[in-house]
C-alpha cells in the first residue's frame, strides 16, 4: 500500500487549477495527476466548485436594479463640505441640483435636519436662533453659525433621530400587526404602509449615516434595522403574498418594535 500523497498539502493542485504554476511545474503536476487518485480527486472537486459557483446569479446592482437612489445618496454625501479634498465645487453643485430634482430634495432634507438640530440646540441653550446677518436666509444663517461642540451635536442628532423613529413607528407597527393571511384570491392590503415606507426611507438612511459618523452606535443600529425594513417594504410588489410575512419575520427577528420603544423611553445617547 502506498503512502498518502502530500503534494496537495502545499497547494500545488489549486495553483495548477488556477494556472499559477510555471510551465515546468504545471507539466510536473499534470503528470502526477495521471497516477495519483487523491490529487485527481482534489482537482475534480475544484472543478465542481467552479461549476457550481459559475451558475449562481451574478449580482452587480442594488436589489431594485435601479442606481438612481444610490447615485442620489452618493451625491448628497459628496456635497458635504468636509469631503471636498481637491477643488472647490459650488458651481458644479448648483448645476447638479438644478439638473436633478431628487438631489435637491435630498439636500433640502439634509438642510431641514440642520435647522431642526439648531432649533433644538438653541432651545436647550436659551440662545437666539436667527442672528442679525442681513442678506442671509435663515438656513444660511444657521449654516454660518459656529459649529457646535460634539456632545451638543450628539444630543441634537439623538433628539431629531428619536422624532424620526416616532414617525416611523406607525409604519413598523402597521406592518407588524397586519394580517398576512388574507382571504383566498386576495393579496394583503398594505399599500398605505408601502407608501409610508417609501417616503421615510431616504431620511432614515441620512439619519443612520449621520449617527454612524457621530459615533451614536445605538441610534445607528436602530436606524439600520429600520432602513432594512423600509427598504424591503418599499421594494415589495403589491401582490407578493410572501413579502409581508418575510418583513414581519424581519421586524420580529431584529426586535425592531422593542428597540424603537426602548429608544423612546430611555433615550439613545451612548
Amino acid at each position, binding site marked *: 500500500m502506498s503512502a498518502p500523497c502530500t503534494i496537495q498539502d502545499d497547494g500545488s493542485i489549486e495553483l495548477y487549477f488556477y494556472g499559477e504554476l510555471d510551465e515546468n511545474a504545471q507539466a510536473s503536476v499534470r503528470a502526477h495527476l495521471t497516477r495519483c487518485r487523491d490529487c485527481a480527486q482534489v482537482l475534480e*472537486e475544484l472543478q465542481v466548485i467552479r461549476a457550481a459557483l459559475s451558475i449562481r446569479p451574478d449580482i452587480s446592482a442594488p436589489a431594485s436594479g435601479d442606481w438612481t437612489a444610490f447615485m442620489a445618496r452618493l451625491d448628497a454625501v459628496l456635497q458635504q463640505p468636509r469631503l471636498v479634498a481637491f477643488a472647490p465645487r459650488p458651481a458644479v453643485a448648483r448645476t447638479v441640483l438644478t439638473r436633478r430634482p431628487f438631489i435637491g430634495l435630498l439636500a433640502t432634507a439634509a438642510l431641514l435636519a440642520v435647522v431642526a438640530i439648531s432649533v433644538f440646540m438653541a432651545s436647550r441653550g436659551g440662545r437666539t436662533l436667527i442672528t442679525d446677518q442681513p442678506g442671509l436666509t435663515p438656513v444660511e444663517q444657521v449654516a454660518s453659525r459656529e459649529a457646535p461642540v460634539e456632545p451638543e451635536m450628539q444630543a441634537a442628532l439623538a433628539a431629531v433621530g428619536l422624532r424620526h423613529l416616532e414617525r416611523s413607528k406607525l409604519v413598523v407597527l402597521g406592518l407588524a400587526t397586519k394580517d398576512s393571511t388574507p382571504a383566498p384570491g386576495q393579496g394583503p392590503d398594505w399599500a398605505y404602509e408601502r407608501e409610508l415606507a417609501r417616503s421615510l426611507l431616504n431620511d432614515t438612511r441620512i439619519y443612520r449615516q449621520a449617527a454612524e459618523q457621530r459615533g451614536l452606535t445605538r441610534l445607528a443600529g436602530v436606524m439600520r434595522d429600520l432602513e432594512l425594513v423600509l427598504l424591503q417594504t418599499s421594494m415589495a410588489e403589491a401582490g407578493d403574498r410572501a413579502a409581508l410575512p418575510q418583513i414581519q419575520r424581519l421586524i420580529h427577528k431584529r426586535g425592531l418594535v422593542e428597540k424603537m420603544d426602548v429608544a423612546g423611553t430611555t433615550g439613545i445617547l451612548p
Partner: protein
Amino acid sequence: MTPDLDLVHRAAAGDHAAFHLLVERHRTMVYRVAYQFARDHHDAEDITQEVFIKVYKSLDKFRQDAQLTSWMYRIAMNACIDHKRRHSPAGAAPFGEEAEFRMLNTPEDAPGPEDRAYAGELGEVLEQEIQRLPPGQRVVFIMRHHQGLKLGEIADSLGLAEGTVKRQLHAAVHRLRQALTVANVTTGGQA
C-alpha cells in the same frame, strides 16, 4: 468613449460630471465585488458608496501609470475588510495586530454546512460557506476565483506577501472542499 484617465483628470479638477461618469462606468464592478464579499444588498451598497467616496477623495493621488480598475479594485477590497472590521465585535475595540489577525482568521459564527446542505443547491451551500470564511481568506478567494486576478496581483493589491496569499487561498479552498464533501454526503451525492 472618453478614456478613464481623462475623466480622472477632469474630476480631480472639480468636474463633477466627469466623476459621475466614472462612477457610472465602474459601479457594477465595485458592487459585484462588494456583494460577493458581503452577500447582502444593504452592506454592498454601503461598501460601494464608501469605495467611491474614497476614490473621490483620492483622485489627485492616482498614479498616471496605474490601471484605474486595479486601483479601484484595491480600494474596494480594503473597503470590504474595513466594513467587516467596523461591523464585527472586534471593531468596537482598538484595532491592534492581534485583533486584526483574529478578525481575518476567525470563521464567521453561523450554522455549519451540515445544517444547510439539505436546504439548498450546491452552489448556495458553497456561497454560504464562502461567507463563513475568515475575511482574509474570503477576499483572496473572491479575487482569485471570482475576479480571476493572479496571486501576484492580489498580493500587490492587498500589500501582502505572495506566500501569504497562497496560504490564504489554500486554506479557503480546503474549507470549501470540506463543505463540498459534507454537502454531497448530506444530499446523498445529488448536489
